[in-house]
């Protein structure tokens, strides 16, 4: 039951991110800039900056994790020898 709830949460989260991001990037530039809808979205620059920043963070954490694993395995081998 808990797994199903987690899966449903992931599914709903990804669908809502898709809908929000598509509206933000593809539909919003064609709406007049003084329309009230614009108050629900960040400025257009963040539509590029946020995904790129998230990607950089993700990649750096991944590489950091990989590096820590490699250093640890090297240290373990030295201790055994």
């Amino acid at each position, binding site marked *: 039951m808990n*797994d*199903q709830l*987690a*899966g*449903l*949460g*992931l*599914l*709903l*989260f*990804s*669908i809502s*991110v*898709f809908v929000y*991001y*598509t509206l933000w*990037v*593809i539909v919003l*530039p*064609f709406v007049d800039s003084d329309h009230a809808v614009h108050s629900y979205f960040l400025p*257009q620059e963040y*539509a*590029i900056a946020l*995904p*790129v920043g998230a*990607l950089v963070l993700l990649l750096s954490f991944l590489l950091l994790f990989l590096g820590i694993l490699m250093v640890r395995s090297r240290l373990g081998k030295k201790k055994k020898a």
Partner: protein
Amino acid sequence: MNGGSAGRISPHLKQEQFLFVPYVTWKVLVRSSDCTSPQGARMRRVWTWLGWGSAIAALWVAALQADLSEAQRGVIQALPIWALVVFGCYSLSVVGYEIMFFPACPDEAEKLQKDIRVATAYLNKHGISVSK
């Protein structure tokens, strides 16, 4: 492009009809890999993906060259990052869907636990210590 002979590369073919050159090259590359061997099948997949990727990239570049309004140009420039975000969302939703409908067998798990208890008790009774 509208049939005037000035913009033509050849007297027989229109400019856009020369798209057959990259298309035939790609088709030959895809077909030339022997799909009975795993390596050939892999090369076939590689050429297929490269072909689709370069076709989409060419369309994107062509759209950037077109005479567009400010808003349209901005949207087209943001399309690659949008595609990246959509791919991430798709991957996440596939993971969520698979977690949601992952087959669980609680009855079988209960039976297995019971079997383990019975076997552990039997072995302990006959002097074999089984760590839990």
